[in-house]
């Protein structure tokens, strides 16, 4: 566990002493703090307790706070299990759109959940809904997370450029962001998926990324503007540190927590948008199961009352988005240096 004491007498800040490192250490990074275990040892150690401090780095501190956030831990658990399902499930129980499950029995009506088929069977081709949901998880999660990663990358680059260089470039980039944000993004994503997507998963990921960087760019720019003026950056500049090093070693590490938190919101939004775009038939090729495609196919079977068909993929979307939101909440508390666990 990250929080366990490494040595009883580690002094605060054992990092090599140079101006730059000290500057980084002074902010945000771990300020040594005793926890309960240390307090116990402190009593045992008697007079020695004043040096019985442990040093935790930023991430160890964050994890310690995150662990106390019960909902966030639960969200992390749900996400982890969904990832395992998405990775292993399709290998163990692949979806094969060439095979119709029960070719000799012609039953148009779907079947409600039972012990053999816990999520029921679809109307029409009588596919197992659990199988569809498991195989859809891979595509849906892949689109949600990879488009977020790409979008955050673009947003961070644009925001850093705008915030660090400033001037005309800043103006041009930020006005572009303004314009993009004045059109409801869902409309643009919808149109772009139809016009450029071709049902291809990788193209859809790129389209989603292309429309998810604006918020991050705005955020990173404002962080750069404020961090740029802080003393430790000034100190680094005074000792002659080059721009690139200032950006990557001094400014970006301090901007990470807000970026991570808004990235979690992007994942949630993109998973829902993927489902929506696929639902309308403009997303991933409808012969492959994604959570949106399953919902879309269910819509024609309303008169038969196959409620289990759209219910379970929707439930998966809700659980994923809830989990992502909880993890985002937990991260926000954990990465905020002003709160202490």
């Amino acid at each position, binding site marked *: 566990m990250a929080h366990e004491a490494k040595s009883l007498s580690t002094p605060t800040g054992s990092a090599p002493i140079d101006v730059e490192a000290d500057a980084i250490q002074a902010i945000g990074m771990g300020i040594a703090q005793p926890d309960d275990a240390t307090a116990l040892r402190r009593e045992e150690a008697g007079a020695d307790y004043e040096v019985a401090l442990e040093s935790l780095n930023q991430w160890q501190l964050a994890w310690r706070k995150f662990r106390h956030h019960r909902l966030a831990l639960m969200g992390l658990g749900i996400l982890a299990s969904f990832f395992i399902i998405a990775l292993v499930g399709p290998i163990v129980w692949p979806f094969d759109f060439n095979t119709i499950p029960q070719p000799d029995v012609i039953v148009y009506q779907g079947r409600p959940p039972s012990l053999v088929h816990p999520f029921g069977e679809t109307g029409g081709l009588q596919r197992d809904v659990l199988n569809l949901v498991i195989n859809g998880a891979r595509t849906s999660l892949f689109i949600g997370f990879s488009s977020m990663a790409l979008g955050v990358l673009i947003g961070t680059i644009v925001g850093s450029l705008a915030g660090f260089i400033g001037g005309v470039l800043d103006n041009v980039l930020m006005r572009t962001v303004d314009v993009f944000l004045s059109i409801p993004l869902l409309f643009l994503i919808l*149109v772009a998926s*139809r016009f450029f997507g071709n049902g291809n998963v990788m193209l859809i990921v790129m389209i989603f990324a292309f429309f998810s960087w604006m918020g991050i760019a705005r955020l990173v720019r404002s962080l750069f503007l404020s961090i740029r003026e802080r003393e430790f950056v000034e100190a680094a500049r005074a000792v002659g540190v080059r721009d690139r090093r200032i950006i990557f070693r001094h400014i970006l590490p301090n901007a990470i927590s807000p970026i991570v938190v808004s990235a979690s919101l992007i994942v949630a939004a993109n998973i829902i948008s993927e489902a929506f775009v696929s639902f309308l038939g403009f997303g991933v090729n409808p012969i492959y199961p994604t959570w949106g495609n399953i919902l879309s196919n269910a819509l024609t079977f309303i008169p038969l*009352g196959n409620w289990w068909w759209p219910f379970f993929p*929707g439930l998966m979307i809700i659980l994923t988005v809830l989990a992502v939101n909880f993890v985002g909440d937990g991260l926000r508390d954990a990465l905020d240096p002003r709160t202490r666990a």
Partner: protein
Amino acid sequence: MGKYIVRRCIQAIPVLFGITIVVYAILLAAPGGPTARFANNPRVTEADREKFKKAWGLDQPVPVQYCRWMGVCNPDNEGLAVFISDNGVPNFLPAAVGGGTNGILHGDFGISISTGQAVSTMIARAALPTAILAGTALVLWLLFAILIGSYSAIRRYSFFDQASTVFAYVGYAMPTFWLGIMLIFIFSGPGLNILPAGGMTETRLSPPFGSDAYWTYFGGHPVQAILDIGKHLILPVITLVVVNIAGDSRFIRASMLESLSQDYVRTARAKGLRNRVVWFKHAFRNAMLPFVTNVGLEIPFLFAGAIVTETIFSWPGMGRLTIDATRDFDYPLLMGVLLITAVIVVFANLLADIAYAVVDPRIKY
């Protein structure tokens, strides 16, 4: 104050201009362009495609196409004369002083490729159903969000507060269209079958909404017609409202809690004022300040939600128009819809800023 409003309006102009460029650029970059609609039609030859392009002015250079669409260029002229209207004055001037009549500057959005009707007519026809749906949703959304949010703040940590927290988390994570589908399955499926699954009016009772025949029918049986629309509104409005209530009730709860902890609330209590007076006169009014801006910023989501909802419930509004235009690669219609939506969003944001300046006496300009 007046100066501030004027300045904000002027700032909106470059944004609107930028929107026309972004919308145009995205559609322009699409592979195949407007002829993509014929991609799977074996009977359309290359010659037909060229003819189609010529008929719709798509053979012109892109800047010329854009300027024609904007109304800066006159499609009847060639060479440098394109900027001059038929009456010999610059084409972008209003028609009243002799300028051109084409382009969005003159209110002409072009002609839909798939229906052949004027885009402005189609949008005007779809605007009323969307306004009915979004308007009803907006009123209920604000009402419930404010009620739930402020009640949970007043009775903090009560059962109601906990329940509304759970509702907010789940509602916020719920995809709108999924909620719509489930509602249809529950209320219009074979089990209950008490509410209509889609449409705006009962087609067996009345002519299609918006036609002249409909309005004569409406004049004849106003109560029946309104009840009919009301019945068709129930499910779409619930679908549209739940997500927004979930998010905003949390927002109001937070801002209400903050204003309940302010010094002036303590002062009011110390004066011996009754709880109700403190809540509504002191805390509530201040808690609403940040919410005013928030509502303006959420209008885009209301619109985005409306496209989804209208698709599921086959509501004949702007959302349906957008989806149809997207599916059919109907460029002029799509540009018109996107532009109108963007304009509404920009003005909603503008109104939110101005409203904030009006309601918050601390802001001076």
